């Protein structure tokens, strides 16, 4: 039993990597993920990645932020201690617009960042999980889960034929920056 956990195909050219994805898909090899130094147009469609759900999180955080500040100001300025400010009504709707708007945006922004950190296992001070360090520099990496995808030699050959400059059989899923 091989101890290989991930097979990585490293390419130095994005077009060759796209070709590699095609070749793997033609041979019904499931791709775990692809890591590239820069965004590549059309790759989500090719890999069949679902649309991001970050927008829903943003919407929920926005609603939450808006209702929190609205409740606080409503409680303090309308319910608990109404004040006469410039002869305006005690519940002046136009006054409520700016801070509701600002808090909605603030919570949307913070909430999206928090959601993104949560979803990608990233936090300040935490070593990011990467499979190959050069994927952040000049290598385009296709990762294949080695478990169940046998024989490994065939996958290696497909990647080689597609133009991979290096193929790694890693025993650990991630290498970290330590």
């Amino acid at each position: 039993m091989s101890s290989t956990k991930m097979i990585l195909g490293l390419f130095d050219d994005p077009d060759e990597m796209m070709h590699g994805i095609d070749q793997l898909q033609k041979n019904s090899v499931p791709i775990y993920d692809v890591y590239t130094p820069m965004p590549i147009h059309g790759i989500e469609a090719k890999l069949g990645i679902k649309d991001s759900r970050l927008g829903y999180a943003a919407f929920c955080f926005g609603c939450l932020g808006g209702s929190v500040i609205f409740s606080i100001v409503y409680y303090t300025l309308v319910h608990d201690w109404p004040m006469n400010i410039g002869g305006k009504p005690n519940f002046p709707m136009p006054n409520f617009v700016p801070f509701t708007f600002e808090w909605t945006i603030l919570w949307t922004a913070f909430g999206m960042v928090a959601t993104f950190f949560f979803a990608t296992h990233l936090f300040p001070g935490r070593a990011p999980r990467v499979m190959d360090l050069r994927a952040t520099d000049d290598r385009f990496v296709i990762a294949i889960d080695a478990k169940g995808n046998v024989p490994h030699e065939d996958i290696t050959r497909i990647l080689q034929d597609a133009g991979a400059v290096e193929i790694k059989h890693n025993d650990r899923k991630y290498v970290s920056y330590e």
Partner: protein
Amino acid sequence: MKTEYSFNERFEFAGKAKTWSLIAIAIGIIGLIIGFLDKSEGGMQRTFNDLLLGGYYFVCVCICGVFFMAYQYAAQSGWSVSFLRIPQAFAKVLPIAAVVFIIIVTAGLFTKHEIVEEGKKVMAPYLYAHWATPGLTDPKSENYDAIIAGKSAFLNIPFFYGVVVILLALYALFGRMLVKYSENEDELGGMLNYNKSFKAALIFLVVFGFTYPVFAFDAIMSVEAHWFSTMFGWYNLAALHVAGLAVITLTVLLLHQSGYLGWVNENHIHDLAKSMFAFSIFWTYVWFAQFFLIWYANLPEESVYFYHRWQPEYKWWFWLNIVLNFVSPLLLLMSRDSKRYYARVKFTCVVLIIGHWLDYYLMIMPGTMPERNSYIPFGIQDVLIFVGFAGLFTFLMLQALSKFKSLIPSKHPFVQESLHHHI
């Protein structure tokens, strides 16, 4: 994806588009005749207001063509190249729109009628009566108005003409330069004309940003000359931009669906719809900032503007304005998919075009119509004259578009980027 297109295809202006735009112009002329024969109180005033509204809207949409082109060049953006001929056609119509606008304001300034103002009979012009009525700035006259006299350095007829003529000529000149460079580029290729366009666009944006508020103050805000708002220029700039983007998007979509601009795809429409969405929010932001400051400070000379618009006959339209121009794009264009769905985008364009007509309507009408008549806020000529201006714009714009040798600036350095635009 198809990447080979014939760039030599020209737009042929014929058939249904021509017939319908001519019919719309005829409807507008009928509206004018009905309006000028309208003997009811304020009927004539209403007709002149409609002409001012139509002329201003017409000029603004054409200016937006130049503005759009200029900021695309200034940002060195590639995605818009595939339909850049549409704003270029708008820019080509700007000189005619400017002449139409100047004829309308001239007619309005020099056609006078007798009105009773605070118990005194005065001969007031139909347009800009608040400052252009004779005697307002003369201390010996019984019409003397100290507020207007204090503003007379800005609000006088020679200065008014100076502002309107010089600014419109300047915008039209920059529009012409940008179109000319683009046509030369098609002949010669190379980067020379692109670099010239870039420079011209930067100069235009600086000039436009500083001068457009002055144009808006003179053309529309001075209709109610006792009132003022420093937000008004930006508010009008936002309205101009949203309305112009809606017309550009609608034109691109209709041309695409009638077989032209085959290279335009949902990615271009997505970006256009995104701009419409974003600038509708910006319009609301500026609208609310103006409203909020005036409501909060509650200074009589400022809040009188909104007092007029909160009369029972305008209050519904006042709120409908927000529904059409803020709530509808917000709900209709929020999601990604809806921006890529042509029918939805087209519907939103129409809503925004009508919405900004209402927006301009509420800037002009409540302050100028006689109070007693105003329980009927709309007249038949309002609609007919607007249809006429829409027809005139469509006719002239498509005529200008058919003069281009190709529907795409085929030697623009970013043309391939635009064809492969993907978001």
